């Protein structure tokens, strides 16, 4: 069963890199002076010869990763989500995306749960930015076990992948003995017939608590963990639309351009049903403790329970 110890997905990512490196000598890790924060330092300590700090120069880091990939290496380039996908967007688009190179980009400190550092570092646009690049796979794992498996899947996939990492230590809810990860395949965590909640990333566990509370109160809520934003799992969305008639998406990201719009596009074209987007409502974040911010933005279990009940009754 899931252990109760909290762990941030950035840490799980660093551990996964080490696990992969044991078996694969083509893995190279790059960072832009944030190894201590993105947790690539775990890899750096274990494999110093395959770790390259690029300094505070994210655009160059992405280009170096592209060059390494042309020569057969499998580079993982990590920085904060804001800089890896924002500052270096054009390098990701033109040096990695266009030639479809085998580069893995890890964006840590995504979303408002960055906390005290505030709006400049709280990237709520990364999923949107990465989704728009042709051929880019976009992953947003929800807990420790999922991050480990997602990182392995990213390595196994031949092509560019963006992986979103969180700063905040969170509980793991997946059962490591009974878990499998496949790119592009959502996971149904709770069955239900009244309404479907589709959540992604760090807030999946909050949504899970909210859904379980609502079920105890008699609302039959289906919960899907959508760890892959692109390619989105159309089948699971269409099935949910047909069977529950209403979808609520939950993401720690701007409601513009993220999971909600990806889901709404699928339903609009295949099975139109109401889709309500819960997330960061086109505003910048601000400083404060991460847990407090999640509550303020209505993305903790209590906030989500209230919001889901309200939207389900619409």
């Amino acid at each position, binding site marked *: 069963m899931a252990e109760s110890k909290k762990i941030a997905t950035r840490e799980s990512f660093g551990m996964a890199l080490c696990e992969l490196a044991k078996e694969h000598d083509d893995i190279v890790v790059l960072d832009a002076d944030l190894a201590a924060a993105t947790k690539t330092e775990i890899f750096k300590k274990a494999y110093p*010869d395959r770790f390259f700090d690029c300094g505070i120069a994210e655009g160059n880091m992405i280009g170096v990763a592209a*060059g390494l990939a042309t020569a057969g290496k499998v580079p993982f380039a990590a920085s904060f989500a804001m800089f890896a996908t924002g500052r270096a967007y054009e390098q990701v688009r033109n040096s990695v995306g266009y030639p479809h190179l085998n580069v893995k980009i890890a964006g840590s400190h995504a979303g408002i749960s960055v906390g005290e550092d505030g709006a400049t570092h709280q990237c709520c646009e990364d999923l949107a930015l990465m989704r728009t690049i042709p051929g880019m796979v976009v992953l947003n794992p929800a807990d420790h076990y999922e991050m480990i498996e997602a990182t392995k899947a990213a390595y196994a996939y031949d092509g560019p992948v963006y992986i979103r990492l969180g700063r905040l230590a969170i509980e793991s809810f997946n059962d490591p003995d009974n878990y499998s990860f496949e790119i592009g395949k959502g996971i149904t965590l709770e069955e239900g017939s009244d309404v479907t909640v589709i959540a992604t990333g760090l807030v999946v566990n909050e949504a899970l608590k909210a859904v379980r509370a609502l079920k105890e109160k008699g609302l039959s809520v289906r919960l899907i963990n959508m760890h892959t934003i692109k390619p989105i799992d159309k089948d699971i969305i269409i099935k949910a639309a047909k069977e529950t008639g209403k979808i609520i998406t939950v993401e720690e990201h701007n409601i513009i351009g993220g999971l909600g719009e990806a889901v709404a596009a699928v339903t609009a074209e295949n099975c139109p049903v109401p889709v309500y987007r819960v997330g960061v409502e086109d505003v910048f974040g601000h400083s404060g403790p991460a847990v407090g911010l999640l509550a303020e933005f209505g993305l903790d279990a209590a906030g989500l329970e209230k919001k889901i009940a309200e939207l389900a009754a619409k």
Partner: protein
Amino acid sequence: MEKSELLELQKTACKVRLWTIEGVFNAKSGHPGGSLSAADIMTYLYFKEMNVDPADPKKPDRDRFVLSKGHCCPALYAALALKGYFSTDEIKVLRHIGAMLQGHPDMKGTPGVDMSSGSLGQGVSAACGMALSAKLSSQDYRVYAMLGDGECEEGQVWEAAMFASHYKLDNLTLFVDFNGLQIDGTVADVAGLSDLQGKFASFGFEVITIDGHDFCAIEDAVNKAKSTKDKPTVIIANTIKGKGVSFMENQVGWHGKAPNADQYKIAMDELNAQLKAMEA
């Protein structure tokens, strides 16, 4: 360099220029000026220096060339076609719908292109990655990248320069095609690179300045770069934008414009006359 070898390179460079004009004319767009200024260096690399095989464009131990100033691909395409990577017929449909040869280099679609490029400032970073990979795997291939002088205004060039120097990438050689002109005017007027040699030297590079149309000078510089240890080399090549076509030489207006039919004829006549003189 033997005189006969020099003459062969000069003839090949002239053919690269002819096919550059052919491509840009048929595309009715493109960048002749910087292609012509870079033609001699690309000719030297592909026909004298680099360990490459058109029959096996992806062979792992090949030397690499990154055209960071990707808009000058008409000259690269000409060199690759003449080297045997693909038919020169492809050049006649450069930039057309469905053509293999794109407006800027596409490594996925074009044999011999080692890196997609075109967005200025990004090529040196990729070249650093290739050079770093060689170091990691103890491979002895070399990596060449070509920048425009105006391109050196991009900040990423200097991020990459810092990286190359920090990691002692002595298997990396940069060329700066210093033709002195960019879209909005002279480089000096637009942004001013002032002491480019000093800038690269302070970033830890071996700096060599040459006449970029002198094959012997190019050879000497490349050999010096190959014998330089523990640091990357930049070869700042003073060139003439539009070199070889009289009315294009040193003219800002020929940065990104195709010749009309009359201009095309004059250009081809001039270049063919140069080739004929060399063959005589």
